[in-house]
């Protein structure tokens, strides 16, 4: 495979400030590359160096093994087309006029656009879905339309390489995927190499194959999504703690960054050294699905030390517990609770000042957890049952779970109507 673009030890400096520091990579023909990195990491600068808008202090950019500096502007433009971040057109050129400007690198000084040029423009407009707008003034288009007009202009240059600078930055979610799907189509059908600086990691993993991650002007990682998009790399480049998981629909990696509040200092888990000096209550929450997460999150925000009770690794409350380093009892999916796990669970119940039963569904698999809590309650453990009156709707055990809830209340457990009630109950203590 022919090497299309090669960057050698690229270093770029502004006065008293190094923006790119020894960046090196090569991109082969037909690749679909996402350029990632935090604001100020050097993405735009790298793109501008690739197009010769900025001159490097050291190193070189090679286009098909030829130094960019040795090529004329027209030669570069026949190989490489750029879609800038700001696609504003202030003058009322028609859409067709704007797209035809893409033929500039092929036209001699006194040459008029030929029929072939117009056909190329027409084809480019059809590909990007703006052919109907050909006679419209480009100044009157919406952001999404304008972006596609500018891509049509880029296609008119018949490039081998298409550079996109934050192509989705100003678009709504429908245009974002339309646009990146278009980029994929161009890549597959025309063999155009696509390089895009992109902020949205989740869109990037969905549409790109290869990733370059910049941090502080250096290339931190390069390769597949699995190699580049890891919590460690994200911590290093963006400075945030993130969860990386697979999307339930397409299976690509996805990144989610919990809000700052959740990234803040955590209450220590029960049994830890800090816990001994902590005055906040240790709370054990019976796990299972979104309902338990709501309770967990509210409790954690209130400052409680938490632990989570038997859940499978696929359960969202398990991932929650992992992210916040909470003690959690893990069980195998589709199997009854093992002896070891049951033992572990009882130990956590023992350590807790308070046990919370969120409004989760109960079936034959987790009825045993309710029974464990009942046992603890009878030994004098404080228990709060959320939404006890809706228990019959969540009972898939033929009345056993509902009966257990009633017994719990009889044994001294308190019922609260919702999460707010739970927190109120907790802070009153």
């Amino acid at each position, binding site marked *: 495979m022919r090497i299309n673009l090669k960057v050698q030890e690229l270093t770029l400096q502004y006065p008293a400030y190094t923006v790119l520091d020894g960046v090196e990579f090569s991109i082969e023909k037909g690749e679909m590359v996402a350029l990632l990195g935090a604001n100020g990491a050097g993405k735009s600068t790298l793109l501008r160096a690739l197009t010769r808008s900025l001159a490097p202090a050291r190193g070189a950019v090679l286009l098909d093994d030829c130094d960019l500096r040795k090529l004329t*502007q027209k030669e570069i433009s026949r190989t490489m087309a750029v879609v800038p971040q700001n696609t504003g*057109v202030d003058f009322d050129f028609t859409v067709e006029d704007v797209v035809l400007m893409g033929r500039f*690198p092929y036209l001699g000084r006194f040459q008029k656009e030929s029929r072939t040029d117009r056909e190329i423009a027409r084809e480019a407009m059809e590909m990007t879905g703006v052919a109907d707008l050909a006679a419209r003034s480009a100044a009157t288009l919406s952001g999404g339309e304008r972006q596609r007009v500018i891509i049509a202009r880029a296609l008119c240059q018949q490039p081998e390489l298409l550079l996109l600078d934050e192509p989705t930055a100003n678009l709504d979610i429908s245009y974002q995927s339309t646009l990146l799907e278009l980029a994929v189509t161009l890549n597959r059908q025309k063999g155009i190499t696509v390089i895009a600086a992109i902020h949205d990691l989740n869109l990037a993993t969905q549409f790109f194959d290869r990733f370059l991650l910049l941090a502080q002007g250096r290339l931190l990682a390069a390769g597949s999504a699995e190699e580049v998009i890891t919590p460690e790399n994200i911590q290093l480049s963006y400075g945030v703690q993130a969860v990386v998981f697979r999307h339930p629909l397409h299976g690509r990696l996805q990144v989610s960054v919990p809000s700052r509040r959740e990234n803040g200092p955590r209450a220590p888990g029960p049994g830890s050294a800090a816990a001994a000096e902590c005055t906040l209550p240790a709370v054990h929450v019976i796990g299972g699905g979104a309902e338990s997460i709501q309770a967990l999150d509210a409790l954690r925000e209130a400052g409680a030390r938490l632990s989570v009770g038997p859940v499978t690794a696929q359960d969202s409350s398990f991932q929650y517990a992992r992210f916040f380093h909470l003690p959690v009892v893990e069980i195998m999916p589709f199997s009854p609770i093992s002896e070891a796990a049951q033992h572990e669970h009882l130990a956590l119940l023992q350590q807790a000042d308070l046990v919370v039963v969120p409004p989760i569904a109960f079936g034959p698999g987790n009825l045993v957890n309710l029974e464990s809590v009942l046992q603890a309650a009878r030994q004098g453990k404080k228990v709060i049952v959320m939404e006890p009156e809706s228990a019959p709707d969540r009972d898939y055990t033929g009345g056993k779970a509902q009966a257990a809830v009633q017994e719990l209340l009889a044994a001294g457990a308190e019922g609260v109507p919702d999460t707010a009630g739970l927190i109120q109950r907790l802070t009153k203590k």
Partner: protein
Amino acid sequence: MHRRKTIFLMIIIMALALSFLLGVGSGAVAIGWRDIAALVLLEPLARLGLAPGPEAEIPAVTRSIVMQLRLPRVLLASAVGASLAVAGAAFQGLFRNPMADPFVVGVSSGAALGAVMAMVLGQTFSLLGFGTVPLFAFGGGVLTIFLVYNMARIGKTVPVMTLLLAGIAVSAFLSALVSLLTYFAGDELHRVVFWMMGGLGGATWLRVQVMVPYAAAGFICIFMFARELNAMLMGEETARHLGVNTEWVKRVLLVGASLLVAASVSTSGIIGFVGLAVPHLVRLVAGPDHRYLLPASALLGAALLIAADTLARTVIAPTELPVGIITALVGAPLFIYLLRTHKRLRYFSNLE
């Protein structure tokens, strides 16, 4: 749009023909269009053997008024009007700024300083038949543009915004020098002030002969880069991505437009408003494509300046008004009216 452009171009050409006839025909002695046609069209054609000779002899007085006085004046007016309009269009495109006019980078101030120096210092010599005033004016204008260009230069590049600001600053400085000299002008004061108002009173064939090649050279320079100018309107970086060698384009356009301005100012003083308003007028009707805008502006600029000059010399005849007064007095209200009624004039609004 295409039809609209063709019709507009035909209207401009008719306006030019009409203003030509008016310009040559009106004055202290009125001359009919038949005589004008015979003198400027049929006679040269007959001389080339392409048309029969004139039927009736044209009086010698008429001939001399047309050939010695009015024709050079009308031709000079058209060359100056076209130059200013094209220079204005080029600067507006280059700077992507609606306020740019031919004088924006300070060429006019430099030329004015040269002219005023020549008048105040009272040096009189002539070179190739030119007096000191046009020579000094031309030199001042050309020097200024080199000064501004080099002040704005950072390494090999010249950012247009820096160029614009350097132009404004240099222009202000030179204008102050002009005021200073004017203050000490003494007996020459009247002449200095009159020159700066702009006028075509000194039109001779010699001036036409010098102005026309300059204008032609400048036009060719700028027209050749019409497509590049269109790309530059998309922003400099985008233009580069499209394959435009922007630094080269800027240099050529700057030099071309400045030559047009320096030549115009040195022959006829500072005539305002034509260079600002004409390109806007054309854009309003026919859009921003420079391949049309530049030639159309040239023709319309020529037509309007001939008309304004004709008005200037007939409105309070035998006294002649400086033509710069007419262009601003009539042009400004018209321009403001267009600005109020046509929102499209504001399409420069979203500049980065």
